[in-house]
């Protein structure tokens, strides 16, 4: 049976998915999946309309009435803490005629008043005010029937708020599976938890969301070349293969992947990412298990990507060439798809709430120096991603098969103490092959 019959749409969509399905286990992926309008339409339906998507961190909305606007595909959601302290998310769309009731990206409000006809909603979603209600709608009108529409699913993991457009979606806990063990390396590093370092930066890049996340789930191999200038400047470790010395772990069947990187042999790097010693000591009691702490003690660079489009990067870095000691930084990012070959990067900097003030300042410097719109690593990466996406969408280029064969044949590490399937070297495409298995499963569903 032709693949186009299986997936619907045109024969071109069927051909691309067929090439992906037949080539994946050989490490061959068709370039066309990275910049194609039909692939993107199917991703909207099969991936983003039923996956858990990161919306916000609870520290962005600490007080009653605090809200941020966040997006899943082209849907805007008001993520708001009610007067009762509960966090909710509502489609930013007046039930009367569909105007947005909240057009600021962040703020504090007890009520949202629609600028079209004045329908007014409390921040728990209830419709409370309708101008000329009796004259316009009569006695039988029930405001209770016209509340703001809540997001189908909203759940939290250690301060991370995720939303899902599908009411039938599995729980966030089930979705994360064993990836939660690795998330806890960051979320439970202190009893106080994390806080955002200001609002997220947002910038548009002409690339595909999958190309962006590849860097944060598996591709440590690119640091050799893409970020070579930073190695030469002494900002990244001197050994150009510095990102190779770690374990790459994937969660089978889920698509999630993580990289736990130690340090080049002989490199004098402080333990525990270089966080202040007091934070390393406190983590002994905040981590759920001793194994978490032992892994964290040996970690200098840590990344995790949760299927489909949330990534976390937590590397040791020097904030600048003058500061004598390495300082770790932490960023969360969402690779928000805007269209074929076009994304918006939403990038947060974060730090432990109970970190010393001097350290918070250095961590912010470190983050802004390397990531976000002013970041050197970010600029290195986005420049490359945009050219790859352009080629992937070209008439000849889209037919090219990319190589995802790195690390094939390498046996998993039987001694790794954490969950998932771990590989003993970080120069491998294992996490990507796992990611695209899950991607393909959903795209063909």
């Amino acid at each position, binding site marked *: 049976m032709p693949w186009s019959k299986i997936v619907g749409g045109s024969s071109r969509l069927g051909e691309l998915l067929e090439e992906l399905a037949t080539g994946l286990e050989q490490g061959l992926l068709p370039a066309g999946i990275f910049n194609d309008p039909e692939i993107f339409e199917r991703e909207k339906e099969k991936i983003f309309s039923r996956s858990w998507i990161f919306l916000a961190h609870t520290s962005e909305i600490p007080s009653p009435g605090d809200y941020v606007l966040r997006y899943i595909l082209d849907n805007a959601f008001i993520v708001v803490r009610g007067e009762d302290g509960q966090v909710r998310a509502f489609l930013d769309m007046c039930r009367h005629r569909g105007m947005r009731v909240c057009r*600021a990206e962040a703020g*504090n*409000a007890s009520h949202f008043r629609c600028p079209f006809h004045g329908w*007014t909603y409390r921040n728990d979603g209830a419709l409370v005010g309708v101008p000329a209600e009796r004259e316009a709608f009569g006695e039988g009108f029930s405001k209770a029937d016209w509340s703001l529409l809540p997001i189908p699913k909203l759940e939290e993991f250690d301060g991370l708020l995720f939303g899902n457009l599908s009411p039938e979606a599995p729980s966030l806990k089930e979705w994360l599976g064993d990836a939660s063990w690795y998330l806890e390396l960051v979320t439970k590093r202190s009893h106080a938890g994390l806080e955002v370092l200001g609002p997220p930066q947002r910038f548009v890049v002409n690339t595909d969301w999958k190309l962006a996340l590849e860097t944060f789930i598996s591709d440590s191999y690119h640091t050799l070349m893409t970020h070579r200038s930073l190695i030469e400047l002494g900002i990244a470790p001197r050994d150009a293969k510095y990102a190779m010395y770690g374990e790459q772990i994937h969660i089978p069947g889920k698509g999630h992947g993580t990289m736990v990187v130690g340090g080049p042999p002989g490199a004098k790097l402080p333990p525990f990412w270089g966080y202040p010693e007091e934070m390393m000591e406190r983590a002994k009691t905040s981590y759920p298990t001793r194994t978490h702490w032992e892994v964290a003690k040996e970690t200098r660079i840590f990344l995790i990507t949760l299927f489909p489009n949330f990534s976390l990067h937590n590397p040791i870095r020097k904030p600048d060439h003058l500061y004598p000691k390495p300082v770790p930084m932490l960023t969360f990012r969402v690779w928000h798809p805007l269209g074929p070959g076009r994304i918006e990067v939403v990038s947060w900097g974060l730090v432990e709430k109970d970190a010393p003030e001097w350290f918070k300042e250095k961590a912010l410097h470190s983050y802004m120096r390397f990531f976000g719109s002013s970041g050197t690593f970010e600029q290195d990466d986005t420049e490359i991603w945009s050219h790859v996406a352009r080629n992937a969408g070209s008439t000849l280029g889209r037919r090219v098969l990319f190589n995802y064969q790195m690390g094939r044949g390498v046996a998993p590490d039987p001694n790794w103490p954490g969950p998932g399937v771990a590989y003993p070297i970080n120069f491998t495409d294992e996490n990507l092959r796992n990611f695209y298995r899950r991607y393909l499963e959903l795209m063909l569903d």
Partner: protein
Amino acid sequence: MTLSNEFTTVIVEKIRTRNGERLRITSPRLGYSIDLDPLELEALTWQTVDTFSRLLHTPYGPEEEGVDVHPLSDLVLFGGGDA
């Protein structure tokens, strides 16, 4: 002091009466103003959001109750004769 969010702007100021002081809250957009004494302000401290939801039942200020609304056709001359 001016307080704003995306929905409105209000001006809050302490005013002196001959023998005391009040808090004046003004809505420059809607043209309403209220002077609250400390007791009224204190009473606000135990209100819940429901109080304000009730106040916002009419989101742009009070609406006249019991207005005798007539259709425009009532004003049209009857008789159907030639004008």
